[in-house]
């Protein structure tokens, strides 16, 4: 349940400062001359100031605010968040509300909200870090009525979101050769999609895989043999057994490594690979599709540094391609199989 809204103070605007200055001038003139007509003006100016303060305060209160997160949120990537705003006041409408989700983010204007009325909109938010976060509170501010003050209030939200690691452009990862992992052909027949070989049809073969065009050409049944899909498997072995990271630079490299793993996994999944994620303490078995993508990203979003360990991480399929991601000791390189050995430590991608 959301806690109570928190006022964010009142900020005087430039127009408000001028207004106060003029009130001061009138006050000096009135007290100097004893002219009660000027006192009337001064009283009215102060009354307007009070009304302005009261109305601006009331204008941002008694609202019900909520946010709705998008399906996937990646660190550092703009995302559209839907907000709703409802006026719970019985008497007063609301005017000119400036709505922000998270402090200082993109603003949206809700021009008028009638009694018991509601409005909705979308704002762009950027969450800089992966992990479990609460979506920013809904900040409602207003210059109403006279632009003398800017009054703000924060409506806490209970919406918790999982922010996936930042994704780099896939090309940057491929340039490092990471994309080749799992694509080294196994050259073995199997039940995949790619063509392995054409051969004479044998008893027991699946008649659905008869290549009718070749059959017609050569005059005998030709069977279309597919390559095994085991060669389109990638095991992302993310070694988070790095101990406590006290050095901010090391921590940044660790984060970058997480992002590289996420990028490689997402890119591979998008290209039809089966992807497995192995970390210390948690593994996501091979799988494909959106569900796997979500599972891998979730695991990487929540991965934290663990105690150092000498035991190397291993895939459940020894023949699958491997992407080893680890924070190496300075100068050390990480072996990946198969293919060239690559330095995949943070900061290289």
């Amino acid at each position, binding site marked *: 349940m959301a806690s109570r809204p928190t006022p964010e103070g009142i900020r005087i605007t430039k127009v408000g400062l*001028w207004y106060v200055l003029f009130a001061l001038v009138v006050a000096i*003139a009135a007290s100097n001359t*004893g*002219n009660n*007509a000027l006192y009337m003006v001064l009283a009215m100016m102060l*009354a307007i100031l009070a009304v302005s303060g009261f109305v601006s305060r009331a204008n941002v209160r008694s609202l019900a605010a909520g946010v709705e997160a998008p399906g996937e949120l990646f660190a550092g990537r703009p995302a559209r968040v839907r907000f709703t705003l409802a006026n719970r006041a019985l008497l007063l409408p609301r005017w000119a509300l400036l709505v922000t989700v*998270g402090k200082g983010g993109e603003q949206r204007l809700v021009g008028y909200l009638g009694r018991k009325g509601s409005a909705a909109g979308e704002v762009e938010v950027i969450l800089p870090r992966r992990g479990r976060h609460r979506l*920013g509170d809904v900040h409602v501010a207003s*210059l*109403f009525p006279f632009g003398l003050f800017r009054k703000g209030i924060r409506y806490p939200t209970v919406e918790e979101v999982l922010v996936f690691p930042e994704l780099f452009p896939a090309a940057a990862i491929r340039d490092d050769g990471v994309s080749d992992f799992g694509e080294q052909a196994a050259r073995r027949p199997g039940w995949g999609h790619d063509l392995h070989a054409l051969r004479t049809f044998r008893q027991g073969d699946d008649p659905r895989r008869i290549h009718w065009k070749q059959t017609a050409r050569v005059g005998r049944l030709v069977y279309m043999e597919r390559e095994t899909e085991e060669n389109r498997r990638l095991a992302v072995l993310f070694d988070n057994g790095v101990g406590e990271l006290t050095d901010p630079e090391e921590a940044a490299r660790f984060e970058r490594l997480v992002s590289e793993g996420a990028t490689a996994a997402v890119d591979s999944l998008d290209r039809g690979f089966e992807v497995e994620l192995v970390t210390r303490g948690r593994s996501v078995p091979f799988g494909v599709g959106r569900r796997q993508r979500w599972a891998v990203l979730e695991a990487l979003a929540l991965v934290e540094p663990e105690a150092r360990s000498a035991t190397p991480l291993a895939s459940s399929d020894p023949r699958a391609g491997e992407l080893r991601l680890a924070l190496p000791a300075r100068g050390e390189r990480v072996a990946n199989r198969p293919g060239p050995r690559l330095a995949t430590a943070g900061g290289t991608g």
Partner: protein
Amino acid sequence: MTLAFAREKRLLLAALAVMAPLPLPLNEVVGWPAVAAFCLGAGAFLAATWRGREVGLAPWMMNVLGLAYLPLFWLDLRYLSGLQLVGPVVRLALFALLIKLLALRRERDKWQVLIGIFFVFLAAMATSVHPSVVLYLVAFVVLAMLALARFAYLHVLAGFGRLDPEQARLPLASFLAGAALVAALVAVPLFALLPRVTNPYIFGRGGGTGTVIQSTGFTDEVSLGSIGRIRDNREVAFRVRFDPADRSGELRFKAATFDRYEGRTWRRSPRSSTLDGGYGRTFQLAHGRAQGWAQFFLRPVTGGSLPLPPGALVLEVRERRLDLGTGGALSMTGPARDVVEYRLGFGAAPASLAAAPQQAGGQAALDRGGATPRIADLATRVMGEGTALDRVRRLESHLATGYRYSLDLQAGGDSPLESFLFETRTGHCEYFASAMVVMLRSQGIPARLAAGFYGAEWNPLTGYHVVRQSNAHAWVEAYLPETGWTIFDPTPAAGRPESGEASGFAVLGQAWDFLIFRWDRYVLTYGFADQVGLFFRFRELWLGLRSLLRRGDPVPAPGAASPTAAEPTAPAPAVPPEPGLPLEVLVALSLTIAAAGTVALALVRRARAPWSATRAYRALRRTLAHAGLAVPDHLAPMALHRRAAQRFPAAADPAGRVVGLYLRESYGGEELPPEERQAGKEAVREVARGVRPGRGAGEKEKKAG
């Protein structure tokens, strides 16, 4: 920045501009021609804008017109206004405002025009004294609130890049009505509580309220005919409320006496002594038991005379000292500027405030100035033989019945009294009274002219009597051995000012009078003394309430301690010595100083505290906006950084640092350590240096080199 939503802003400003100077000609600060010319110009601008036509003076034209007006201003000041500054300055302000209005092009111009309008409005208000100015104030405030509300909303819309007037619609009517009502309700107590440090000052003609009253009996020298000149004047001189309210019998209020007649002018009786009322401000005028009390509200008059009914015994007034004339009239030591409020206890029989003519000033009452042989002869014939009282009565009757009352006089010549007595046989009260005084003196009977007011108009709405200028009257006080100073009134009854209760349409007049009275008393002349009174009244209420809550004691009614008609006249109550500064003022001053100190301390602390990343980010936005970068409200942090980096490469790095810190603090929910927050502050300063013209990339390169 060019004016967004220009049409609506121009319409609002033009409407305010037309409205602002309207009271000025009514107050006679500037004449109708100047205001009419201004209103025509502003009205034409309004009409053209309404029709969608673009009206705009070029800046050079504005400057030329401004310069061209300077010699006109000098001529105005030197010849038209006789070096009186107010009129020419207001006319100059009107001219400048009109020119600025016509040259309205940028957002900045809008505020400049608004400031000009505000000062014209201030001039109009400051010179107004008529109650209708409240309507003007409310109307202006509503329009100004509408303008401010619209400007604020349009500013927000422009920040979002929405410049379509259709999108700018906002239902504000009910809000404005409510806000104006609440503001007016809040303004009333504020008006009462705002500290007054000087006496109320009224600037302006009075526009019907007659803040400067020229009245007979209140000046040191009164020429014959002065009363006649003001008998048509319906201005209120004072109001009086009697306790008990049913006041029967004639109402006569003496304000001054005149001893010496010099051809056609009376000179006021000199001062005989100064009465000291002590700290209680209570003046014991005569001995006796007060049969009734009267509360007077005397409007500002020249001379400071206090009109008193004949039986005055004790007087309570906020004056430490009063002057007592030889004729028994009381006056303040200086002229009154605001409404004078005083309370008077009076007895059943007229009490004489003056000594016998043998004592001080006695010779003046026997001065035979103006008593020509012809007048003396007439007096001898009319008065005949008998007791002094009989003889005086005979003369009074002779004048009252043998002469005609008229305000339309042709009397003149060297001796207006002879003309009155022997030729025209027509005059008003001053002629009748003057003739009788001169004739009595010619017969050796001490007499003097008394001036003041006779009769009053009963206002049932308020329970007080209204005494107007038209109630001004003159009569005779003669000294008789058997009765002392006695009042005689030789003016025919038909010529005396009327008393009574008005009816019909006059009820409206009374209602208006009720309003005017309160306006004068509680608005125009509201001052520090009223605030002190208000404070004590609240204190009394509070004490009463506290006592009721604590013990259940009955609450004494406010003012119960005051003497009433049933009580004997009490001597002046013991009053503590007058302090140098009232305690309330000291308390208020201390509180003000404490509040100012707290605010100052908070400001210093705030200035010294390390900035939060959010504050640094705000400062960054301001800095970039000042440097000319478009920073609309909706611009997100990263976009701001990109935009800043593109425009000010030298500031890109520090701006990026500020944005980074801000993102961490606001989105990541991190609490940044003080060093990082300080770094944000420093980065903002770097940005400020980087965006300065002439510095930036080149300088950076130079430094790097």
